[in-house]
């Protein structure tokens, strides 16, 4: 037997014996089916790696279909908001439109600006594409569904990977040798770096409550129905959810934070000079990202695959997870087709003057909350829901008294 198959050649992947689903898969599914002569010598580590690669392959094959659906959904939703029908030509009700667009983009000329930096120009879309797909590795889609890498620092990994995207954006903007692209990429760099902070801080409130960075642990801690979802666990996570949601819109460069690709200002931002399949990669990455951040939001705040009621599977499991995620995606679309775009300095104002102080306040509050109440205390959930309810009602009445007055100057 060559050395490569010997035990101990591969480093140990397992962090905790028996918890890694891939090892379980090899032990319970593959080895019993092997002939006895081989089974005894089957290298567990190699098998684990192969199984992980196989599942990663499934993801790489399936996840690109998501943007395909989401682009169409975006166009149809936008059309509904604007009393239109959206694409109607290709396929029944235009359902194959994105496929047709993709085919068109593949056959288009792949133009590389001759004065640009060729290597960076070619590399940039792949970095963005790879990073936005790597995020999917840590998203727990469902209880029974194995995720390729179920490690105990899931959310940390996601934060790390998703901030690499900005590298790709800067590379794309710089290497295009276009002033509009450069402006767009610099805007993007400033924006993504700034919004990482409120994003991370609002994630921190969740981590403080759950006392784990693992995505699976976070979901498991929300198993007691809708009121144990982390969004309702404390009043501070309620605020943190909205900060997380808005910051994640900024992270994926969508209106009202779509400055890096602001069409009416800087033409198309960092991907102005891209065409053909490279442009399609940017496009796919954008929509994959959008789905990913929504899925993270669902995992962290909206119970992941846990249902609305304890013991019942309503809005639970894999379909429930997808429905909740698509709900957040719809919210993103709704915001996009309603709001205008912020200016660069206002974007920074919003982040540094509003989101970050509030996030710190949230962390402080969550810490105090954790000191006062025991973990998973029924009372804490009740009090938290009561505070959120009273807060919303109070806000509504204050709005009725003070702010409903329309900002309408009377014509002279």
């Amino acid at each position, binding site marked *: 037997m060559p050395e490569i198959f010997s035990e101990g050649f591969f480093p140990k992947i397992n962090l905790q014996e028996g918890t890694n689903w891939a090892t379980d898969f090899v032990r319970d599914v593959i080895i019993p089916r092997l002939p006895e002569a081989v089974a005894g010598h089957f290298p567990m580590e190699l098998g684990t790696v192969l199984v992980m690669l196989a599942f990663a392959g499934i993801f790489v094959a399936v996840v690109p279909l998501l943007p395909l659906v989401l682009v169409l959904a975006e166009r149809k939703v936008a059309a509904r908001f604007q009393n239109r029908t959206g694409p109607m030509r290709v396929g029944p009700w235009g359902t194959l439109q994105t496929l047709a667009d993709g085919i068109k983009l593949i056959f288009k000329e792949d133009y590389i600006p001759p004065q640009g930096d060729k290597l960076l120009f070619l590399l940039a879309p792949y970095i963005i594409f790879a990073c936005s797909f790597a995020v999917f590795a840590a998203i727990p889609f469902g209880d029974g569904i194995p995720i390729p890498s179920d490690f105990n620092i899931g959310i940390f990994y996601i934060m790390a990977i998703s901030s690499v995207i900005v590298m790709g954006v800067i590379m794309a903007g710089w290497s295009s040798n276009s002033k509009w692209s450069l402006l767009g990429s610099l805007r993007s760099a400033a924006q993504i770096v700034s919004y990482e902070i409120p994003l991370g801080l609002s994630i921190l409130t969740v981590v403080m409550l759950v006392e784990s960075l693992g995505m699976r642990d976070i979901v498991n801690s929300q198993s007691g129905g809708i009121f144990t979802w982390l969004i309702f666990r404390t009043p501070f996570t309620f605020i943190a959810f909205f900060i997380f949601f808005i910051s994640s819109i900024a992270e994926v460069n969508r209106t009202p934070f779509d400055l890096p690709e602001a069409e009416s200002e800087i033409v198309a931002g960092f991907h102005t000079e891209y065409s053909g399949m490279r442009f399609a990669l940017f496009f796919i990455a954008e929509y994959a990202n959008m789905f990913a951040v929504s899925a993270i939001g669902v995992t962290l705040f909206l119970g992941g695959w846990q249902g609305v009621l304890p013991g019942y599977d309503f809005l639970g499991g894999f379909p429930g997870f997808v429905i909740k995620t698509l709900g957040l995606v719809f919210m993103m679309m709704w915001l996009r087709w309603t709001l205008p775009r912020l200016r660069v300095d206002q974007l920074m104002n919003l982040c540094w003057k509003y989101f970050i102080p509030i996030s710190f306040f949230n962390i402080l509050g969550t810490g105090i909350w954790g000191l006062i109440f025991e973990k998973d205390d029924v009372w804490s959930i009740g009090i938290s829901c009561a505070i959120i309810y009273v807060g919303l009602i109070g806000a509504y009445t204050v709005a009725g008294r003070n702010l409903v007055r329309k900002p309408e*100057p009377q014509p002279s």
Partner: protein
Amino acid sequence: METTQQTESKIIELKPFTDEMVVNMGPQHPSTHGVLRLELRLDGEVVREAIPHIGYLHRCFEKHSENLSYPQIIPFTDRMDYVAAMNQNWGFCLAVEKLMAADESKDFAIPERAEYLRVLICELNRIASHLLSFGTYGMDIGAFTPFLYAFRDRERLLLLFEKICGARLTYNYIRIGGVSEIIPMEPGSIDEQNYLDEIESFLDYFEPKIDEYNDLLTSNSIFSERTMGVAVMSAEMALSYGATGPNIRGSGVDWDLRRDEPYSIYDRFDFDVPVAKDIPELGAVVGDCWSRYKVRMDEMKESVRIVRQILAEGLPDGPVMADLKAVRPPKGEIYFRSEAPRGELGFYIVSDGTPKPVRLKGRSPCFSALSALQELSRGLMVADIIAIIGSIDIVMGEVDR
């Protein structure tokens, strides 16, 4: 010895050298409202100077007109401000009619019915023009949906124009001495009643929509952040640059030709002239982008009011065309100005008594307003340039002519 030199040469002196970046915005750019080219000198995102270059849509309207008879010029005025073509027709016809009235021997009067039709159609056209301005301004700021809402409502207006003159954009409806009879509409007939009912149903539909648009865009906090206090054009500046129409009213100057120098039958109608005011609790300053935009939104309501008054009175009986044998103004010259949706539209005509003008000059409101851009934009950001262009509401067809 060598090694020390090498290490010394590797010391990099950090001396950040920044330079101005010159960027061409346009003529092919998504939000320059046509073919405007702006030469931007940028310091990062901050605009040091924005120099507008015009002339990409120049079609020799003035020179061309010298070789055309007066009725033939009217279709070309359509192509000046193609968003508010009715008002351009009217401005030109008013000038020619004024010139012809100087001739004592020819006695003609514009029929009452034609005057009413002109006011009716031109006020509807003003609504259409301001709707487009509102929609494109929303799109410039980044909200795409108001644009399509504006187009949805404008489409209904275009259908109304289509029914009365047979064209959607370049109407050629208002003629010298009256209005076109290309689609006959008998006074008091069922056609007329249907048409007026249709206008009424549009107004009933449209009036609540203005409030809806105010909810959607005008009062939106992102929109007001982007536009309030940006590019403040003081009253003196507006006057010195010759800005007119909603732009000067947005700067707080209470001036509207329809009220202050009433032409046609505008003195019979009751309407207000919206003028911008400081709104401290919102942050709006007189003369900023938001004020100019808001004046347009309020003007739509006033136009609705005027149209409603006409509908209440009903169109008078009679012909729609004055009894003119030929359009042959006497020798002389005239400058006549009227209030188009974008401001004061003037025509200067020199006639030598032949059917063709010797010289024709159009005074375009957009051109004057655009000239203020250079001073307005200094020290602002790239995104603000877009906001200014949208707020002064230029149509390049009229700037270049």
